[in-house]
């Protein structure tokens, strides 16, 4: 009974993974009369020494992840603590915060692209609340604001998901622990620090790992909003892999970039696990 799933996973997961390894050492092209030829480490040498756009992509991807991971995890926790209170209507707020998560990131990207227009909603808002003192920017056409602008909408879209993960972690902490802490005279902050936080360790690992992996895979927002520009300020590893491996049909080189991406994900996931485990 495991056979259908095993065959499908073999064909569409295991084989592509093996192909990612195999093709990265060749000059394979998507459509080509010649069979792929073995080229050794050429693709990797090219990525790190002759392709400044790739290096820029790695840098941008890291910048994105370094901001998104802590902010999204922290904001998600804050929301979770808010909606975990025994108050009327918290279920309503949980649903509201989760709505962007079920909205496609493609839709979200095009919507925010519209709001980021020079005369769009964001700039009108800035103009109104500061009474004209602050001027907005041409967010997506300015190399120094394009990536931050994409960071904002990415967090906006995904944070509700991690709120729910934190929430399910919070709900595993027994009420008696809070009662005991209150008896000892602990205020809200002391309760959070001594009861809530220690009870969330395994949830935290999961949240950090999933946000990091998702952040390193940044693609759709870039493809819809900026195509990597302006001046390569928003190009990312996956975007570059698709540009080379698919649009320019250099499958071998694209596979090599995908493989580098995979190794990065693997290393970071392992390091995060290791670091968060050590403290126990």
């Amino acid at each position, binding site marked *: 009974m495991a056979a259908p799933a095993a065959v499908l996973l073999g064909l569409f997961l295991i084989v592509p993974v093996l192909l990612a390894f195999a093709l990265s050492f060749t000059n394979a092209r998507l459509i080509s009369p010649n069979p792929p030829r073995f080229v050794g480490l050429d693709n990797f040498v090219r990525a790190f020494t002759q392709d400044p756009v790739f290096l820029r992509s790695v840098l941008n991807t890291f910048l994105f992840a370094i901001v998104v991971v802590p902010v999204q995890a922290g904001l998600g926790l804050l929301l979770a603590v808010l909606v975990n209170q025994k108050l009327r209507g918290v279920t309503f707020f949980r649903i509201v915060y989760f709505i962007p998560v079920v909205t496609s990131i493609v839709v979200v990207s095009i919507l925010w692209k519209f*709001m980021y227009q020079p005369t769009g909603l964001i700039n009108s808002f800035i103009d109104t609340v500061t009474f004209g003192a602050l001027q907005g920017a041409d967010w997506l056409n300015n190399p120094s604001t394009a990536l931050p602008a994409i960071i904002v909408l990415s967090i906006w879209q995904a944070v509700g998901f991690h709120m729910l993960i934190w929430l399910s972690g919070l709900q595993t902490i027994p009420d008696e622990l809070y009662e005991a802490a209150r008896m000892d005279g602990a205020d809200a902050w002391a309760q959070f620090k001594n009861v809530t936080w220690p009870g969330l360790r395994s949830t935290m690992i999961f*949240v950090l790992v999933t946000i990091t992996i998702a952040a390193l*895979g940044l693609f759709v927002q870039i493809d819809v909003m900026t195509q990597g520009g302006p001046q390569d300020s928003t190009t990312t590893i996956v975007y570059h892999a698709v540009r080379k491996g698919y649009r320019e049909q250099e499958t071998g080189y694209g596979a090599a970039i995908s493989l580098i*991406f995979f190794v990065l994900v693997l290393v970071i996931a392992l390091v995060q696990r290791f670091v968060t485990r050590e403290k126990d």
Partner: protein
Amino acid sequence: MTAVTVSRQDRTEHQQRRRRRIFSYVAMGIFAVVFLFPLVFMFVSSLKPDGQILSDVRSLRAFLPVGDISLDNYVGVFDRVPVARFMFNSVLVTTLIVGLGLVVNSMCGFALSRLEWKGRGVVLAVIIATLIVPFETIAIPMVYWVSKLPTLVFEGAVPKYDFGWLNTYQVQIIPFIANAFSIFLFTQYFSTIPKSLDEAARIDGAGWFTIYRKIVVPLAGPAFATVAILTFLPAWNSYLWPLMVVQEESLRPVMVGMQYFFQLNTAWGEVMAYTSLITLPVLIVFLSFQRAFVSSVAASGVKG
């Protein structure tokens, strides 16, 4: 401690709690506005002509269906792109991925959790190991791979062998039916159902497939709901994959169909109408099954 001091303490505690409650509501309200305003703006703008959308952003009118309200943008969308066709494609692909996925993955979960067979441990370990592989890693090699796979094509009524899955429905469906995470969830859930039920059924002469159909499946409703929800969203929202493997307009799903609006002068009213159209079905499904959605997401975090 006298009665007086106790009541004073109670009162300050009561006040403190009230203050905290008010603060919480204010904070939750502000966040609600932050998460809703872009979507309200999208739906409202889809009803307005382009000129009015641009002039309304300077005031709260941006969020109100006032002024020249009509469904003209929606009519325009249907004129400009084959929306009905895109919708049909997305519904077809999503339904088959979710439906076939439930069958295939639950059967695999059943075999892994309740049958004794050689190599079971290895298969389970491999499946769990693959959970770490992001789709973006294998997307490029997979395009290459599916472009080489054999397929049946019909010339008139004559079936013929050909190579290449590009520009088909199957390339959008078959690779996503088996899902390691779904298998993992089923395996976990099935192992909580008492095995004594199987033994009793086997004594009555039931085969494994009967046990799966008649005993395990009926008891695993929540697991099926969770997997259905967790596979529905990415299937409906998929973008990168169909972008690469489906160039033929008549086979494209809704998310890729949006590309037609990137060309020429962007008619924002129509874009907002299109995005509203493709967001509404998901929103309706979510709001109808929100309780199941919330517990599914919670379940996806359990593995910690």
